[in-house]
């Protein structure tokens, strides 16, 4: 399990102890914290699991692949340099204490 902080679309901070077997999308979606839709169930087909991971973490994890970058352009909120599709990130790859911010909307 990894302790994360999730900042929801209203700006409220939530502590989330996430199962390392899951994707970040699954961990947030299943936690009851609103703000992730994931229409496609985690296959990088829908761009509705958009998150901001912060520039430090973005540097650590490395750039997303070409397909993910292409999908991010179609997210409801325009992507930032620290944008990712949370279905493409494993909880196991996140450091304890990582702060993940959810965009205002996924639609």
């Amino acid at each position, binding site marked *: 399990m990894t302790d994360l902080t999730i900042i929801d679309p209203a700006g409220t901070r939530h502590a989330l102890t996430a199962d390392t077997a899951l994707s970040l999308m699954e961990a947030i979606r299943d936690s009851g914290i609103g703000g992730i839709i994931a*229409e*496609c169930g985690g296959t990088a087909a*829908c761009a509705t699991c958009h998150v901001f991971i912060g520039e430090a973490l973005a540097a650590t994890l490395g750039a997303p692949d070409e397909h993910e970058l292409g999908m991010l352009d179609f997210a409801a909120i325009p992507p930032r340099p620290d944008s990712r599709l949370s279905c493409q990130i494993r909880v196991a790859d996140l450091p304890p204490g990582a702060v993940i911010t959810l965009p205002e909307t996924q639609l």
Partner: protein
Amino acid sequence: MPREEMMAKPLPVVEDVSLAAMFDDPYPTYERLRREAPVAWLKPAGIALITTFDDMIAIERDHETFPANDPRSLQIRSMGHTLMRRDGEDHTTERSALVRTFSPPMVKSHWAPLFQAIVDEQIAAIRDQGAMDLFGAYCAPIAGRALAEVIGIPDVDWRDMLWWSQALIDATGNYGDLPEPWERCARASAGIDAAIDAHAERWRAQPNPSALSAMLAAGFPIEKIRANIKVAIGGGMNEPRDAIGTLTLALLENPEQRVAWQADPALRRRAFEEAVRWVAPIGMYPRSVARDVVLSDTLLPAGTPIGLVAGSACRDERKFGQTSGLYDLNRPQAQHLAFGSGPHFCLGAWMARMLVGEMAVPALFETLPNLRLDPAQPAVWGGWVFRGPLSLPVHWDA
């Protein structure tokens, strides 16, 4: 038996609904089922209907309990074994060869200019007429021509795409095992196979982003190529055709929303999503049940064929409120299920958003002055497994 299954009620049987009434207007039946029996055996159809949003989401998140692969599937008989009837790794591997063709960057960069040219040609063909039934004069040709391009069989006439698609759909729905749909499907299938062969040489010599070219490049065996082309035709022709009609009719019937939409292109995506939510072009799609399971307090025995009724889930009052049956592009944005959810989420979703929401419908309102419904010939809706306006007579000032 687990306690949950002991406490669950048996699958209720619904016998007092006719399929003809469902074809005409399924929505009152859906509303009743959501309220009284969200998991119910519809006897005339021989399938258990799942009519609520949350149950559909749960099913699409559990492919082990609710597999898409079903040996009884009529689709496997009509089209061959397509990616739509595979699960897990088998499905992901097959779909991955097609992702790039249908990806939103490819739609935007490669397909959009072709779509615009098709729309422009179709507008030019009708703009001097002053009155047409848009179904055959606009919706069907645009959907057919656009799909032929994306699939990779661009030399095929849209009229062939139209009857091929209907033949595949009718055979796939041929639960009564009548001979005519199988015969027509066999003819369509032969035509599709010939079109594939005719175009394959071109793509082998000079690959393009189409689905056929991508599958050839991926080294798929011919049976797999044929099956997936057929499911793309069966699943990608009628739906954009119907979505063009549904969105057009929604705007014509709601003048205040039409005015707002015409004034602001930023509303196009929302207007499109609301149209397919309001009348989902695919109203129902099947799954099977691999083990006894409880859904909405109802016991579904292993082996029960189930139908996920997107047309109902998209009007679930628990998600969309008491006005769920109305077209309202101002309603709070929420996920709908017209494209499904989970791993089988519609590959054509981004193609449809562009072709229908950004191009085909805006072109009608931008170029046909004073576009309005024909007061003497009302639009005709039809279907429940697939639903859309079968006839959409309009007038404009030509």
